[in-house]
């Protein structure tokens, strides 16, 4: 059967550009950064502009940890991986009090403008759910064409995980929103009011 989502073969650059356009159309503030310095600057600028005082960080791979740590030098930072060693209540308290959550996305989905979050502890999911600001980092090379390409990957991740450690997976395509008041589109209900995507295309 033809692909109802209509994806055609596109070059990597085109896919990333489509991803960027889709995200911007969905009220996600997205940008492409080319190196470590640009990454640090982009993240620092978001956190500083929003006057964040405390940030929770989840799942950033070692290659990019330096850029993130440098960007957050002036704010209180809690890494979710460390929170997991503290009492549950305390950890949730820190997550709920944070001004922003910085999380890792394993993939981007160009056509639908979604980022794909795969975590194994609900505290990491809360880092992108509880704070008012969500900043997702992902690699430009990870951007997939569309949901039709992403869904089988999701299936694979779930299938391949051991029965005792199944992933918690979320596609996120924008700030939380509602149309429940006279059908007006309003952003920021229970989840983040603003979502940023930093797409890393380090050469």
């Amino acid at each position: 059967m033809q692909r109802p989502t209509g994806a055609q073969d596109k070059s990597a650059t085109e896919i990333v550009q489509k991803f960027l356009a889709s995200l911007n159309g969905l009220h996600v503030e997205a940008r492409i950064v080319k190196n470590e310095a640009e990454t640090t600057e982009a993240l620092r600028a978001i956190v500083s502009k929003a006057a964040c005082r405390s940030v929770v960080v989840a799942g950033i791979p070692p290659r990019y940890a330096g850029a993130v740590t440098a960007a957050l030098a002036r704010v209180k930072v809690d890494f979710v991986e460390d929170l997991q060693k503290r009492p549950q209540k305390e950890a949730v308290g820190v997550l709920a009090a944070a001004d922003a959550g910085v999380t890792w996305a394993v993939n981007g989905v160009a056509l639908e403008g979604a980022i794909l979050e795969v975590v194994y502890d609900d505290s990491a999911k809360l880092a992108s759910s509880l704070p008012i600001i969500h900043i997702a980092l992902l690699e430009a090379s990870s951007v997939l064409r569309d949901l039709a390409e992403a869904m089988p990957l999701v299936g694979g991740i779930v299938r391949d995980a051991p029965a005792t450690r199944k992933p918690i997976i979320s596609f996120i395509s924008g700030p939380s929103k509602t149309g429940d008041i006279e059908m007006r589109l309003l952003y920021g209900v229970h989840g983040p009011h603003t979502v940023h995507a930093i797409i890393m295309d380090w050469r």
Partner: protein
Amino acid sequence: MTNNRQALLSKLRRSLKDKESSEKFWASMTKARANRAALLAREPQLDIHAIKESNKALKTAAVANTGLVEEFAENIRRNGGQVFLAKTGEDAMTYVEELSKRVGAKLIVKAKSLTSDEIEFTHELDKVGIRSVETDLGELIIQVAGETPVHLVMPAAHKSVKQIAELVSTAVGREVPPEDQAILGAVRAYLRQLFLTADIGVSGANIGVAETGSIVIETNEGNGRLVTSLPKIHLVIIGMEKIVPKWEDATYLVKGHSASATGQNMTVYVTVITQHGPLAGSTDGREYHVIILDNGRSKMRDDPWFSDALNCIRCGACMNVCPTYGIAGGHTFGYIYPGPIGIPWTAEVHGLDKATFAHLCVSCGLCKEICPVDINIPMMIAKVKEEEVQENGQLVVNDFFMASETLAKLASATAPASNWLLRREATRVVMESLVGVDRRRTLPSFSRKRLRARISPLGSGSGEAGKVVFFPDVYADYNDPELGVRAVKILLALGYRVEVPGALRWSGMPYISYGNIAKATTVAKRNLETLKEYLDQGYSVVSTEPTAVYMLREVYPTLAPGEVAEKARQVSFPFFGFIQGRLADLELKPAYPTDEAVGFHIPCHERSVSGGRPAIGFLSAAGYKVQVVENGTCCGMAGTFGMKHGDLGYNLSMEVGDHLFRLFRESGRKLVVTESSVCSMQISDGVGLKVVHPLRAVEELSTAPAPRT
């Protein structure tokens, strides 16, 4: 009249009187249709027809696969979850109560779940003193108001910002001003505390994936993510029909759902959960429970009439497009499940006595056309109507209109006396009180000389271009046979052989509208029998009446399945669709001035067949500029529905029509063109403009080729 019918009429009367709510609700539905249309226009590559086809195939197979529930359950257990197969809603609630008692739950937070609404989850827990709070904004509003959802996707679409502020004030215990941001802020702060302290989080699931025992939840507000992570216990309530075999199956269900529900490419959050994982490194006390609900679904699956309802993915698109639901709202046009798809669901899970609102359906067929799983909702509604009528009896007026063919025959045989009688006020008063035909409705006149008599001098035609059975239905045979003559002349001029078989009866639509499937089947079989010999000889079937083609394409294959119906479906065409490639061979002269555009109305039954495009092409070829005037739904006439007296007829019909009448008035058009005989009456009565069939917008062909039979 039964109590249920009486109650329906009372509710309908209230809905018709409450203009302010009705206007607001209609505007919401209009906006919902516009959101979907905007997405489809913005994303031309989003092939909604391919999505429909794919979803229909996979859902039908999944629903029929009785092994899926066990596979899904087994995989959840393998991943450490607990599964309960609930035969009834009562069983499900007993499980929830026992679970709540065992863990000492004081507070439950709930994400939006229509399946939990179906079993009256919060209400049942209230009775045993367990507090369960809805966390989706719309659901919270109606929970505080003590109502049921007015719409599947927009449960509080009927509430004004002022009413919402008042209800939210009650919920949070302080006054909240009627401003969007103030309401959102208050709700966020109030529910945040509940998320953080709740003992159990309850969610539904849009999809269950059997191969891994996972659920997929599609939400926008973000409450679903909190409900499924913060509380120690995550309880899922999923209808057994939601389970599909594989991950690949989920893609187009997600696409079809979001596009149809809200005009989104995807909802903001699509969350996949397979177990209740650790929170901050600890799994202490964290439990995962999945209730798989039957509650009448097995019975539906095994019933050939209703198994299609199980393909529903709860997008609400059928509600957005339903003309009478748009006026009446989901509290009149619904029980717990509202709208068109709510009719079969209510009849099957809550009982036939709760599904009396089926009679609000006017059989326009738009719900099937918009459905992203191509569910044949109109046929299921016809069946529910039939069952309700068998139980409670038929209305006199419905019986009258189901005899339209016989009555037309009689009126035609006695014309012009019948026309004189029908124009008399006294006759109409009697007809209204005895039969229930509204005296305010202009009725068409009847012609003594019928179509066959008029076309016999023209001969049957050469047949060099092909062979055609012309299907006049009632209007082009008894009321305006000249219309049929014009159509036949064009077909002959284009070189077709044309037959109008004497044994061909009317299409029988009112039998579907008023729930007499037995008679609809009889007429379908009879017509197919008549058509068979022509179909075998390669004839196509062509009609100027959209409903006739709709019946042949959409209804007869279900009523009389088989090779003949299938063949008839494939070769039945609306008149203008049939000749659209030959317009250059016709010398079309406009019968009205062409300096100004004509207004064009697309009949509902033409939408799924051609969308009206061929008729527009015909008018353009005759030199007209055409302006389509529409609001995406029905004009309200709906066959004979708008001729019936009272609220469940003329009044509701005109209320629906009013929205289209306003557009026609604003358009400034002086002439309206439409293919449907009944839409024509409605627009003419409602706007007072001249309304003609496209064939009457051109000069009649002066000559037809000499008969060569």
